[in-house]
């Protein structure tokens, strides 16, 4: 692997971390409304996924979507603008934190109904396969989503129709406030794939290179064998489910333990120990990210809110239909 790749991954993880911290701040200042689900602790997962994806691959995920948005090359200013509800946001301020997307970047969005994007992923994969494209889709979802009906319907159909999907479970040990063993008959999530005779694996989600390797392996399997694949990524979120989560469901000692495995810290240590990068180079990455974040905040704060007319846009594809037959 090239040094530039290493530095890129380090940069991406630091960027995610700093953006999430900034988002936390802006939320506490009342500038971000609604729900905010932060990716802190899981940076290695999004980074590893995007690193493994080919240009023709796609990704779709849950509402905890800021990480993958950035690793799919969404401009941090555009992310923050969306969080602030500005018209320059990736979803024109119509989606917010849970609904970032940029289909030009092959990122089909964050989705807020747990498990609902899994059937959508089967549809996207069906279209790719029907059109004889080499495209594959990584469908990210949490451990909490593995108990909902959609999970079973979508996983089953993907196997029956042999769809090019990498089902990727970000197992951060909790579905909102409920630990896996309280919610799921099977806590080794990858074993659920066995129930569908689907090839599966698991990987340490705090290790960015391991994630990249595991996703690569999965994508290769999909192409080579023309069938879906299931990857359980074992990770942890350092903050609550969302802002305002009082976290009554876990001990702070547990959080402390997982923080010893901080993906960014681990990777930094690895790069230094293997003499892949020097301390100064990594510090420079962090400094660059500080500037990026400042610029992103400036862009977002200086952007305009959507006009009133934007309320009525994109209800239908023909603008003339947007206000047709409605009651005022």
């Amino acid at each position, binding site marked *: 692997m090239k040094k530039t790749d290493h530095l890129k991954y380090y940069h991406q993880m630091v960027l995610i971390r700093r953006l999430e911290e900034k988002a936390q701040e802006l939320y506490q200042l009342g500038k971000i409304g609604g729900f905010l689900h932060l990716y802190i602790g899981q940076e290695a997962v999004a980074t590893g996924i995007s690193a493994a994806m080919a240009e023709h691959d796609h990704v779709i995920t849950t509402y905890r979507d800021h990480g993958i948005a950035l690793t799919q090359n969404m401009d941090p200013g555009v992310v923050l603008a969306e969080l602030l509800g500005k018209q320059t946001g990736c979803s024109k301020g119509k989606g917010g934190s849970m609904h970032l997307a940029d289909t030009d970047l092959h990122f089909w969005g964050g989705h807020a109904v747990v498990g*609902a994007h899994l059937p*959508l992923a089967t*549809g996207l994969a*069906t279209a790719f396969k*029907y059109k004889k494209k080499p495209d594959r889709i990584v469908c990210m979802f949490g451990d909490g989503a593995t108990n909902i009906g959609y999970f079973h319907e979508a996983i089953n159909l993907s196997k029956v129709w042999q769809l090019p999907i990498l089902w990727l479970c970000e197992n951060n040990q909790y579905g909102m406030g409920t630990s896996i063993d309280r919610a799921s008959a099977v806590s080794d999530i990858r074993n659920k794939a066995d129930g569908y005779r689907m090839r599966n694996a698991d990987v340490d989600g705090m290790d960015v290179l391991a994630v990249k390797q595991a996703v690569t392996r999965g994508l290769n399997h999909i192409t080579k064998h023309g069938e879906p694949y299931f990857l359980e990524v074992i990770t942890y979120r350092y903050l609550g489910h969302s802002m305002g989560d009082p976290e009554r469901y876990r001990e702070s000692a547990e959080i402390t333990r997982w923080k010893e495995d901080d993906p960014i810290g681990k990777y930094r240590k690895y790069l230094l120990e293997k003499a892949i990068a020097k301390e100064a180079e990594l510090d420079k990455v962090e400094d660059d990210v500080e500037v990026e974040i400042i610029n992103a905040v400036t862009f977002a704060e200086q952007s305009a809110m959507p006009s009133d007319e934007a309320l009525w846009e*994109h209800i239908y594809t023909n603008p003339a239909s947007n206000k047709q037959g409605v009651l005022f």
Partner: protein
Amino acid sequence: MAQITVREAISQALREEMRVNPDIILLGEEIGVWGGTYAVTRGFYDEFGPERVRDTPIAEGVIAGAAIGAAMGGLRPVAELMTINFALLAMDMIANHAAKLHYMFGGQFTVPVIFRSPGGGGRQLGATHSQTLDVLFAHFPGLRVVAPGTPYDSKGMLKAALRQDDPVMFIEHATLYQQRGEVPTHDYIVPLDKAEVKREGEHVTIVTYSKMLQVSLQAARQLAREGIDVEVVDLRSLRPLDMEPVYESFKKTNRAVIVEEGWGSYGVGAEIAARIASDCFDYMDAPIKRVAQWEVPAPYSHDLEQLAIPDVPRIVEAVKEVL
């Protein structure tokens, strides 16, 4: 022109469009090898093959979801939900996703998906197989909801639906498939957002759609024999709602009866009545009357079931009440 059934009309629309547009694929339970439980897709599997006519597992969530995702990915999928009763299992997909994805992501992609689903009762299929749930779908901005009542409209509106980019809930009716009507042999479409006067008259306006259109036309013929001349306005589209022909008619007759197969309270008729009363207040000569299914779950026993469903005598009585 040719005389064909609603079933044939829907089948023709699908077949003709599929022959010219390779992006159209069908998915649903038993639509392929079986030929469709209402025989709409008979012969399609042989003509178009398993890639384009996909039998699915019994899993409405992923049937609807895969159709939506395939639409996002550039295809034009038509998902059949075997009956509208089972569409409830796909409600989150239809209402939370198909209707909203275009909006939520700032118009980044379109969702040109069509859900075909027959509703209606009267065949002793019991409470969970006999419902008319149109109004539930009509409630959601972002969806187009249509319910044609003739072969002409069925073929023309399905073709129109396949040639545009919004998600469409195409509501059919289990006992309307046999209904015959004239259909041109040349290609044509019917707009997805226009109501139409199906029978001109002077004394009372009947507003209706789908199967109840045919029952209302029967009632109109009976009333004509008694010298009562009713105008029948066919909504055809529930969302967007086209009230222009309804208002035009009401201004002429000053009396309205709304006929629907769904339950009365909170139904389609409630919406139409409220709009007429609000926008044509000065033209009202009588209270607006709604004829709807009695609010009971459908029972199995034959005569019992028929009691609840609007029929010609009930419509005739309602028309006389407003005169």
